[in-house]
């Protein structure tokens, strides 16, 4: 960023120039940094009451251009810009002011370097926000899996059962149904003999039998059951989404509503002619390009305590018949083909000696996985040069001053 414009007798700048100056100026940078600090502070306070996931969606999702903060559960009637857009504008401000418009010269090189590092960091944050996927994979000792389960995203899964196995699995993604709280949408399946109409989506809901408790808010009934809405859990992973579905025949006739719920233990079974299908609402599963076998899991505790010392999973990765052994433990994940496996937890809880254990890995796909590290080195080089130079100049001036006086 350049110094503030100096007064000169020149003709007034054009609107475009003035807009550029504003967009790349110190004033905007200061305000954006301050706003980001305030948003971070408010989000830190709010996550105590609302939970982390809900707070992040509120403050830092790209769909949130403005937010109304809450302190101790009370809404503060001051709208603030959403964190995502503050970061986006800050990236533009940094690129224009801190790299493009900045006065060029040897002295400014460290400054440009550090600004470039922050730009990498911010863009990395954006890439992670839009393109990363996270899930968990639980696998028992001696068992193999190649499927990870998403932490938050509920999907509708339609599968045909052949030889007692689900085949031709069709998935309707969360993003396609999450907005259907008060409306419905038709999803066409050309390969299946029917389509589905989905509506009444709820982020956290529980199917209740009307004989057990009568609906209080005129909820839609489906085969004696209705979906009772629940407030979002603080720990968003514990939410169980639900929705209503209608089977739409090719002639356009619609069946009675069916409840699909994450809280249901079994999928809904649909007989269509001689064919059997299952309709299910569940957390999204994603298949990895290789298998992972857990050979051995070791949980070590400090002697005489329940304080964990080490969790070690010895695994074998199998891809196209090729096997490779690896160890995953705290602070030492396994990275392969864009996927990273972290030691997250293990079970069953309170397992006794000799009991078969399972290990839970957090599986992350993040194209910007290493960007923060690259940006760190860039920023550190820039800031060290910049501040180091200032310190040296300061020391020299002090000693110069001292020797003269």
């Amino acid at each position, binding site marked *: 960023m350049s110094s503030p414009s100096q007064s000169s007798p020149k003709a007034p700048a054009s609107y475009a120039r003035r807009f550029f100056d504003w967009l790349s100026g110190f004033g905007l940078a200061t305000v954006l940094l301050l706003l*980001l600090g305030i948003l971070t502070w408010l989000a830190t306070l709010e996550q105590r009451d609302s939970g982390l996931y809900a707070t992040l969606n509120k403050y830092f999702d790209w769909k949130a251009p403005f937010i109304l903060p809450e302190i101790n559960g009370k809404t503060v009637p001051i709208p603030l810009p959403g964190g995502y857009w503050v970061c986006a504008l800050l990236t533009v401000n940094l690129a224009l002011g801190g790299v493009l418009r900045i006065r060029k010269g040897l002295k400014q090189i460290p400054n440009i370097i550090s600004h470039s590092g922050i730009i990498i960091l911010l863009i990395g944050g954006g890439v992670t926000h839009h393109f990363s996927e996270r899930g968990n994979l639980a696998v028992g000792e001696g068992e193999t899996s190649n499927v990870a389960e998403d932490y938050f995203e509920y999907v509708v899964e339609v599968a045909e059962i052949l030889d007692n196995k689900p085949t031709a699995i069709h998935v309707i993604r969360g993003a396609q149904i999450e907005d259907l709280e008060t409306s419905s949408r038709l999803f066409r399946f050309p390969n299946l003999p029917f389509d589905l109409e989905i509506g009444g989506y709820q982020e956290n809901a529980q199917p209740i039998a009307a004989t057990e408790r009568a609906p209080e808010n005129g909820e839609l009934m489906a085969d004696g059951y209705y979906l009772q809405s629940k407030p979002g859990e603080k720990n968003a992973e514990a939410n169980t989404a639900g929705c209503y579905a209608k089977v739409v025949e090719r002639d356009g006739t619609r069946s009675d509503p069916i409840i699909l719920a994450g809280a249901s233990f079994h999928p809904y079974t649909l007989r269509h002619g001689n064919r059997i299908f299952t309709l299910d609402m569940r957390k999204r599963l994603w298949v990895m390009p290789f298998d992972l076998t857990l050979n051995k899991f070791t949980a070590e505790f400090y002697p005489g305590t329940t304080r964990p010392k080490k969790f070690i999973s010895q695994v074998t990765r199998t891809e196209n018949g090729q096997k490779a052994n690896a160890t995953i433990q705290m602070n030492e994940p396994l990275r392969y083909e864009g996927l990273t496996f972290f030691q997250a937890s293990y079970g069953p809880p309170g397992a006794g000696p000799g009991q078969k254990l399972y290990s839970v890995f957090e599986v992350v796909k993040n194209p910007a996985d290493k960007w923060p590290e690259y940006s760190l080195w860039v920023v550190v080089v820039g800031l060290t040069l910049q501040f180091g130079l200032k310190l040296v100049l300061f020391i020299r001036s002090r000693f110069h001053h001292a020797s003269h006086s």
Partner: protein
Amino acid sequence: MQATPERSLTGRWIAFGVVIALLIAVLALLARDMKPESTLRKIEGYRPWAKETVRLAETLPVQDGGRIKPFSTYAGFTMLRLYGSRSMKIDAPNPDKIKVSSKPFATLELAPTDWLLDCLFRPSLAVDFPSFRIDNSAVVEAVGITAGNKRDRYSYRDLEPARDKLMELGKSYEAIESAKRDTFQNQTIDLAYNVRLFESLIGYFGFARTGITMQGPEGQGARTTELSTVMQTAPIIRDVITKSQKETGKVPEHVQALLEQVLDASNFSKFGLFLLPPSDANSTAWLSAGNAIMEVMTQQSANPEESIADIKQLEATVQAIGSSEDEFRAQLGKLSTRLIGRAKQDNQYRAVELEASYYRADWFMNALKLYFLGTFLAIGMVMAAGKTSGKVFFWLCAVATASGFLVSVIAIVQRCIIMQRPPIGNLYDTIIFICTLVIALALFIEFLTRKRFALALAPLVGVGLVLLARKFEIGEAKDHMDPLVAVLNSNYWLTIHVITVTAGYAGGLLTAAISFVYVLLRGFGLDGGDRDLRRSLTKVTYGCVCLTLLLSLTGTVLGGIWANDSWGRFWGWDPKENGALMIVLWNLVILHARLGGYIKEWGLHFCSLFGSCVVAFSWWHVNFFNTGLHTYGFTNDKQTMLWVFYYIILAVIIFGIIVRAIEESNKRIASAASTSPDVPKVPELF
């Protein structure tokens, strides 16, 4: 050459008063924490332990909190937990034989090892010690005991009549979800746990004092024998039981009675002190006396002979207390040789002696004394500025502060050697590290600027932070050298991330402290309008903002990279991470606002003062949220001090704003007065 600026004498006295008031407040706080019970307890028949005995006991190895530590450390933290201090005063028979006739009782000070030796080996005396600190008299009143002061200390004998009720109440409160419990309920639960812990100590060697009463098969010939002797007959007892069960389907009555006594004895010595190294090479868990007894009796011991010999030696040590202290010491020496020898085989005794000497040296108390001394010398330095005595004070203050710094460094280095990890792993570590780093930076700034403000500040900050560390240690009563949980157990990351981010806190606090000095000096006219001094303070503040930014930003991003390796995400919006980010953002705001010309000298100092609130939020406040991965499980009743800090900073900022407004107003008046009146324009002649 610039003339020496006129400095306000009134201002200097005000500043002196402020520092003295602060010191008095700090001392009062300290005294309040260390204050013994309202009246000293008279312990009839008490004899102090000989120094040699105490020294021998101090270095006995004990397994606790997942590591091997000296008996003295275990004693220290147990005493802190129960009594709230590492030193207990009692009135005991005067050990001075000459003065005993004129003064039969004298005040004795018990160190943790003395106290624990009494609990274990002389429980009949220990039950009268005021071992329980209770901060809220309502807790004892609730169980039907007549309370003393609101904060007072009680002996086990005081509490014993209400023991059952206390346990019942504690259990009922424990059923309430921890987040919903109030302070009173938590205090009741704590007291119930502390009473149980004390009971486990005083009853620990019960088996060695009472022995086992053996009945003959027909109820005749009852005799008392040692438990170790019974342990030797474990296989025979087992055979008798097996045979009798085969023949009659029952366990013989005299054997049943014997087993019940053994079970009781082992239960009493099952908890509290794990001082027997495992005889099984595959095991890392040490045994309590009770564990060893049960392992032998159930024939699960890998090396029963050794366990029996251990118990035999414990019995000999306990029984020797009845003869003489020399005899007791001799038996304790045998026990010590036995246990240390076994611990050394597995290199488990590595740092025990060093740790015992660390606590004996009480490094941070010595550092505190030096910082106190440095603070008084700094007052002298400020009061006698410009005089020869001022120079003397300057050098004495520098020596005292540098000595305090060296003592702190020695302590931190020793802790690293003992813990085998970098210096910071928990909140206590951060306090002592920040204290030491702030002193180092202040001394460096003094070396660069030679303006004395950094030197005057250093010991005062040292006093504040060492006292904070002591208060925190007493409040927590946890051994902060215990090993870290798996995810934190990485020396690489602890070194590069934790140290960097904590150094960022130190930078932020020092920046604010310098601005604090700036506002007070200028506000009270202590700088006499010395622009050079003001410029120096501002330059140093600016430099410290840069340093804080560099450290905080690097530390925060490193933390993100660590989190990415451990938990699979660079940023988890954990409150602690957010706090560190807020420090980074605030320092960036300061630098950009200054570069943009939105803040000048005053503005920079106000912002840097506010920065200390951001640091305090990140360092302390987020711990109260009980969310995230860096939580230390604080309770809300400890927040008061934090709010006091926020209000002090706010008050200083407001004071600065008022001073600035007055200065501006004076400047405007002076400028208006100096402007010459309008002179009518003289028409040009040519």
